[in-house]
């Protein structure tokens, strides 16, 4: 690992550090700056713009992704920490042309207004349903309490997660676009 211990001799803030990690199942290699956050790399270098920059200080939950099975705010994570990890963003939760049960459930419950918080809400819901496919209403509220939605769709998120849990328990994880209400 060449990046280990490299900076003993210099203050080179502009040096590049090469990291490799798995994003949505694909192995990527990317050069990052030491000060870059994971959100900068995912959005600007890998084009994964579902990762939204909201507050930039871990308060709004718009930028969360699942990294090694943990839900993390990418605005508070140094990009170098992603080295060797496995990252899942909204782009990777369903195959091309399909929607995940959570996405379908959010549409079914008319939860979307402006949609800026959605990537975060969907990733948080996925994290919850991966751990616990049958969450109670309280558990849903507890896990989603960090995702701010200024349109105020909170109650619909709870409904949607319950619906998604129903879909998933029926074995319906992915939906074709044609099955989704327009």
């Amino acid at each position, binding site marked *: 690992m060449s990046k280990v211990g490299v900076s*003993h001799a210099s203050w080179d803030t502009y040096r590049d550090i090469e990291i490799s990690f798995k994003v949505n199942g694909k192995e990527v290699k990317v050069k990052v700056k030491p000060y870059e956050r994971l959100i900068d790399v995912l959005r600007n270098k890998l084009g994964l713009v579902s990762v939204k920059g909201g507050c930039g200080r871990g308060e709004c939950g718009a930028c969360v992704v699942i990294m090694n099975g943990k839900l993390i705010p990418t605005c508070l994570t140094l990009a170098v920490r992603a080295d060797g990890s496995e990252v899942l963003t909204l782009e990777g939760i369903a195959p091309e042309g399909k929607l995940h049960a959570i996405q379908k459930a959010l549409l079914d419950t008319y939860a979307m207004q402006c949609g800026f918080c959605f990537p975060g809400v969907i990733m948080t819901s996925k994290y919850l349903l991966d751990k616990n496919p049958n969450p109670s209403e309280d558990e849903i509220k507890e896990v989603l309490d960090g995702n701010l939605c200024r349109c105020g769709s909170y109650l619909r998120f709870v409904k949607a997660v319950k619906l998604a849990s129903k879909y998933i328990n029926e074995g319906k994880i992915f939906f074709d676009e044609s099955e989704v209400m327009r």
Partner: protein
Amino acid sequence: MFRFDVYIPRDLRDALEALRIYGEEMLPIGGGTDLLVLYRQGLVKFKTLLDLWPLRSNLSYVKLEGGLVRLGALTTVEELESSELLKDKRFAGLKDACRTFATTFIRSLATVGGNVGVAHPLSDIAITLLTYDASVRLRSLDGERVIPLKNFYLDKRKTVKKPEELITEVFFSEPPNNASSVFAKLDRRVGHGMGYVAVGVYAELDNRLVKEVRIAFDSIGRPFPERALRTEDSLRGKELSEDNINRAIYEVLPKEMSRINDYRASAEYRIYLSQVLLKRALLEVGRRIGGE
């Protein structure tokens, strides 16, 4: 706006060496949920960050060994919450503190060592650890120091930890079977709640008689978590009855506590809230020990 270098250490020794070489221009970063926010606001300056995450393979653990409960400094709040140890009712207060700690995604980054080390009043884990009379283990190239948590803080964001030292562990002795704890806080909303007031209570009861009680608040007067020693004294050796609790919270606590006015709450309200939360916590700890 973000401009700094990052040093990725090989192991703990390498990290300690780097701290010595870089001196005060280097700051260690654990979860970063506090440090990077302060940096954004321009409240903290450094040239290089020492990324502690690679040290997690050795410094992230929750164990009970030889009568000591040991928490690795880089254990995240989520790992602590889901640990086997916290299923035990003797650690119920730690469980409360983890469950109400910020949000799901902050809990997966924030560490025990970080929470103890930031020396901020609103450090839920540190408040609870104070009630367990925990100690902090500090490592530097010169060796190891153990500081009781109650002597660890000097002021807001100031501790006795030297810049070349790292917190490696927080530990406390295993509580007896007749012990339990509670952590309670109140804020306008539950999610992201920091608490206008936060309180931790640990107690050992012998047939309703208070054998030992330790009470810690986010602040007693100075801006960091501290124990309410006189309130503890007034309860020790007595029965955990509503009368004794009322006497402690109405007669003793206000004498040793002073609170601040700020945009979040007035001092008067904070003292009132401290009394209410302490009473609830004491009653709850009695119920928990009784197995109710």
